[in-house]
């Protein structure tokens, strides 16, 4: 067992934590942070797992870099949306209005 595998396993734990936050928390910014935690978990697995098997591998590193940019773009978009939503409705979560009862976290 190398330390890289430890990264991957830590990634698995982060994924679980992030998923919990995404499903359970209702404040939208917290949800977004949970998403980012889960994303970090995925990136850790992505780099750690191949590195453990065959040493440093630039391909997953590049993939993760791309993935981070995509995640940043998504996060930024989400923040803009959430701020506008807050501005228009004064709410910080999706629940709270009768119309949205039917929907849960997803």
């Amino acid at each position, binding site marked *: 067992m190398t330390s890289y*595998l430890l990264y*991957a*396993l830590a*990634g*698995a*734990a982060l*994924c*679980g*934590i992030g*998923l*919990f936050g995404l*499903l*359970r928390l209702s404040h939208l910014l917290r949800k977004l942070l949970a998403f980012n935690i889960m994303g970090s978990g995925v990136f850790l*697995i992505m780099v750690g*797992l*191949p590195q*453990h*098997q*065959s*040493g*440093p*591998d*630039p*391909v997953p*590193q*590049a*993939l993760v*870099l*791309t993935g*981070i*940019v*995509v995640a*940043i*773009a*998504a996060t*930024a*978009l989400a*923040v*803009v*949306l959430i*701020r*506008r939503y807050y*501005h*228009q409705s004064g709410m910080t979560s999706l629940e709270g209005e009768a119309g949205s009862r039917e929907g849960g976290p997803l």
Partner: protein
Amino acid sequence: MIRAVRTCFIALACIAFSAVLAASIWAIAGDPGQGTLPQLLSENMSRSGVEHPVTAVLLNFRSYDTLLEIGVLVIAGIAGISMSKTTSLEDPELRTSDPLLYALQRWFIPLMLVLAGYLLWAGADRPGGAFQAGAVLAATGVLMRLGGIPMDFLRPGLLLRLGLVLGFSVFLLAAVVSVIGGDAFLAYPPDMTKPLILVIESVLTLSIAMVLLALFVSAPVNDAEDPEEGDPS
């Protein structure tokens, strides 16, 4: 009560998920690596035009990913400015007037600009590159904005939009140039590889910084909205 039970349930499910995931990782990690890819990569490095493998993957071998990735960033930027006030992105309320900040700014802004330039240049043979440089550049912008230094280009005019897509368009043009020479999409002409990648990296840095900055400053929103379809208003 129900809430607590629900929380427990979700927590258990998430722990189970992590456990299964870890077990899978363990199982996969037990197998010897199949990867012939790193080897293949190092064999082809000489043709990639750059020395650093990650940059080579990003901007040459898997440049299509990067092209689309910049597209994603531009989309976020577009969606961001579509929500912003139409007159100005500057909001005096968000300006701080802290003397320490002013002092820091004078030192930090030039320093960060140099750092961004270095990161861009370093990308050729060691960790670094367009995105890192862009991020630092954007941070510089954020600092400038907080300090109230006017940035006219951030008004949502043509200039801003041009800035958003500059990097993307140059990348796209570079991608399509090769087609005229009868080559595949995104295949750089062999002797042009290095300068092309350099140009792409530089403009990408600018655009990435621009997008991030635009997203940062575009948050104060306007109240105007579309009526829902079928609403009498």
